[in-house]
Every structure is written in C-alpha cells, then in structure tokens.
C-alpha cells in the first residue's frame, strides 16, 4: 500500500521534472533562435559578395562593378578605438567612484541618475549633440567627433556595470586588504577592481558591441567617406554608415555589398569580443573564483 503511494509520487515528480526541463530548453531555444536566424540570413545574402576585393578596395563609383569596404572596416576600427579610449577609462573611473568612494553621497546619486538617463538617450540625439558641440564650431565633419559620440555612448554602460561588479566583491576581501595595512586607494585598484575584473570586462565588451553597430550618431559626425582616410580631422567611413548608404540605394549590387558589410560587421564584433575574452582569461589560476 505504502510502496504504491511512493511509486505514484515519484512518477508525478519525474513528469514535473521533465516538464520544467523542457520548458527551460524551449526558452533557451527562443533566445538563441533570432541570433542564429539573423546570422544564417546574413550568410545567405552576403557571403556570395565576399571576396578579397571587399577587404582590400575602396567603394567604386556608381555603375562600376566591384569595389569593397576596406576603408569602412579601417574607419570602424579607428572610431571604435577612439571611442573605447574615451568611454572605458571614464566609465570605469565613474563606476569606481560610485561603488567605492561616493556611496550614499548626493553627488553619487546625481552621477548614477545621469548615467541612467544618458543610457536611455536615443543615439541620434547623441549625434546631434556632438554635431552642435564639436562639428559646428569646427565647421567640418570629422572622425574625431564620431569617436567622441560613440565614446560618450559607452560611458553609462561601462560605468554602471563597473559599479555593480565592484559592489558584488565581498566585504571580507576589502577588509583583508585594509587589515594588511594597504592604503584604501591601493586596495580599490589592486584588490577590489581586480577581483571584479571579469564582470567589468564583460561590461566594456557589451558597450563596445553596442556602439560598433551604431549608425545614427555617426551621420552627423563622422559622416562617411568613399575614399581612404585615416585622419581624425577628416570625415571617415564606417561599416554601419556604408551599409546604410548602400542599403537605401537603388542599385542591386550595392544591396549585395550592404549584406556583405553587415555580415562582416557581425563577424568582426564577435572576433573582437572573443579576442579580448581570450587575452584577459589567460593567467587565470586553478580554482580561482
């Protein structure tokens, strides 16, 4: 009698277990599907236009076949390099201030609020703002202004993830450092920030990947360029801009190039993020948490 009861209960438990597990699997599939679908579609549409010329040549004038996006790939690299060198240090410093030095102060609350608002500002507004602040006074579009626009867009994400990650470092670890007679600033930089670094790097990569695909803030700043240019003072090409220009054009082979550009953009972002992950994960010790 009793063993029968146990059998039924265990059956019910097994069924519920399978049910919940399959729900989790379905949810995971739903999350991954759009990404995979986009990628497959990009490969289908863009892969056929990818060739060596795409990576080595600048765009050809309308009507001439061929040409590539070498200048846009380089331009995106320059813009993102500039943006990261602005956004990452300012964002991390801000996060350190919020988590370690300004906790509970009015200034910190104001900074946190501003960062959250900045995070919600539409990217086109960022472009217009930088147009008014840099492009208009200088009287010309430039790579510099584009980099600044992207850099400012990176700051809130980097800042807030840095703060969150630092707050997750256990209090005991800070006490251990202070108890050894390590000055507070040193403990923050060498112990707390280092312990939080995997999360901080993830935040930087998120911000990087987000601005890498931004088109709107570049329309009013970097403008785009059909020719080679590496000068920070000149308009510069960027992959998202080039994709935008080609995609809204009336020409079929430009459409194909736009697809190829989108595919390359995604691949480059994935490569950059994996490279940073690989470099920063070297030297992690056995059993480190």
């Amino acid at each position: 009698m009793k063993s029968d009861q146990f059998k039924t209960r265990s059956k019910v438990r097994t069924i519920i277990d399978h049910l919940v597990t399959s729900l989790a699997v379905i949810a995971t599939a739903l999350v991954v599907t759009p990404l995979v679908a986009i990628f497959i579609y990009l490969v289908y549409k863009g892969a056929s236009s990818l060739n060596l010329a795409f990576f080595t040549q600048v765009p050809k004038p309308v009507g001439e076949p061929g040409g590539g996006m070498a200048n846009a790939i380089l331009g995106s690299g320059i813009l993102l390099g500039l943006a990261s060198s602005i956004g990452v240090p300012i964002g991390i410093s801000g996060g350190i201030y919020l988590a370690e030095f300004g906790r509970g102060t009015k200034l910190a609350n104001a900074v946190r609020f501003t960062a959250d608002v900045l995070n919600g500002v539409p990217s086109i507004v960022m472009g217009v703002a930088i147009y008014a602040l840099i492009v208009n006074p200088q009287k010309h579009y430039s790579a510099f202004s584009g980099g600044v626009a992207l850099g400012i867009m990176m700051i809130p994400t980097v800042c807030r993830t840095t703060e969150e990650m630092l707050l997750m470092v256990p209090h005991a670890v800070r006490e251990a450092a202070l108890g050894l007679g390590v000055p507070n600033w040193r403990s923050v930089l060498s112990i707390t920030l280092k312990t939080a670094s995997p999360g901080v790097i993830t935040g930087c990569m998120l911000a990087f990947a987000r601005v890498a695909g931004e088109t709107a803030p570049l329309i009013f700043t970097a403008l785009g360029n059909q020719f080679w240019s590496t000068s920070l003072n000149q308009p510069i090409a960027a992959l998202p801009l080039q994709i935008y220009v080609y995609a809204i054009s009336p020409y079929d082979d430009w459409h194909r190039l736009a697809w190829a550009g989108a595919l390359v953009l995604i691949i480059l972002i994935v490569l950059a993020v994996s490279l940073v992950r690989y470099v920063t994960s070297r030297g992690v010790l056995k059993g480190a948490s």
Partner: protein
Amino acid sequence: MGVGIEVINLNAWYGTNHTLQDINLNIPANHATALIGPSGCGKSTFVRCINRMHETNPIARVKGTVRIGDLDIYEDAKPVEIRRRVGMVFQRPNPFPTMSIYDNVAAGLKLNGFSNRRALDEIVEKSLKNSALWDEVKDELKKKSGASLSGGQQQRLCIARALAVDPEVLLMDEPASALDPVSTSKIEDLIFQLKSKYTIVIVTHNMQQAARVAEKTGFFLNGRMVEFDSTHKIFTNPSDKRTEDYITGRFG
C-alpha cells in the same frame, strides 16, 4: 618580537550604539590572550579598535587610548602603519580569490611597494612554514588560487598572509569558528607556536579553546569587561558572579 598592549578608557560606538564602555586592560607581550563572552558583547569591536579597523565603518566612532609598545596608536600614527604592525585574522577565511597562493602571502608587502623578488620568495616560504601550510602547497604556489584551498587551509593561508608583513601583534577574531575540528586543532597548535614570537589576542566563542591556548582571559559582557585574569583563575575560581554564570553555561 611581540610587544604589550595597554588599553586605557576605551569607548567605541556604532552610530548611537555604545558598544564598548570604559575598557581598561594590559595585554602581556608574547602571550596568547583570549577574549570570551556572549554574542554582541563587544569583543570583536574591541580587537578591531586595536588595529584601527573599527573606524573603517563610516558610522563607527572611538575614544580612549591604546598603546602598542610605546606607540599611542590614535595619537602618533596613521591607520595603515598600525595595521602593518598589528596583523589580523578574520572569522571567515578571506584569501584574495584572484591571486595565487604565493601572491596572497606576498600581497601585504607587494601592495606596499616591496619588490625584491628573492627576499619575497624567502618571506613567503617562511610565512607558510610558520603557518604550517608549506608542505601542503609548496608544489603549486603560483599555479593555484588561494580560493581553491579547503577552509582550514585558507585560514592558515590568511595567517601566513598576516605574518608576512612581520607584525608585532596578531589579532584573531574567532579564527576557527568556521572550521572543522581537525582544522581547528591545527590552528590551535599554530597559536601555541606563534606566541613565542608575537603577542596574540584571540576572540573565541569556544571556552575550551580559550582554556587550551591562552594564558590570560578576559570576559566581556554588554560592552564592558567584567573580569580579566589568568585563564586558570577565570575558569576555576572567577571573582565575579557573572563570569561564573557564563563559564558554567547558565547563559550565553
């Protein structure tokens, strides 16, 4: 060598909570002194006042005199200097999780700008030997994270880390309360060996532990020190009724 600690009229607060009231005592050099008492009686706050960790909490306040050797720590020195002379081991093992075993031990020196590698190697080895951990970790010093060790090993690593900066006093805030009996007895053996070189103050909930390792014992209750005497006297013939009640298990 260890130095004695003289505490005169020490008061401490957390916000408006008066956690330590008029503490006076002399802790002898090169001995182990145990502090016992029920939870919340102020014994942890007391040891945190000896290395000025108490004031790292923004709402904490402290008043009174603490002399370590000839140094008045609240008048004559900066907190970071005091903390290098007065090492601390915390209740829960807290190795730096991203650092190797070697770097954990060397952290106190490295982060204060000490960079002579050969000297560091020697200090790390000596500290790990002094904390009875060397034989268990010597093969993977730089490969394994401090967090990968067992709880008892982590606590001995924390002791080695505290010893590496060559303190005169070692404060231990319930160092074995999160450990199993075998690890606990290792820590106690260690305290026995270390007290010839350092002045040790150990906070403990475990009265047998106090009786085993300490020459002197202080009994704290409700933020006051009720009695301070030789361990033998405290446990066999206390002069205060409240001490006797606590020792015999009538409360706490």
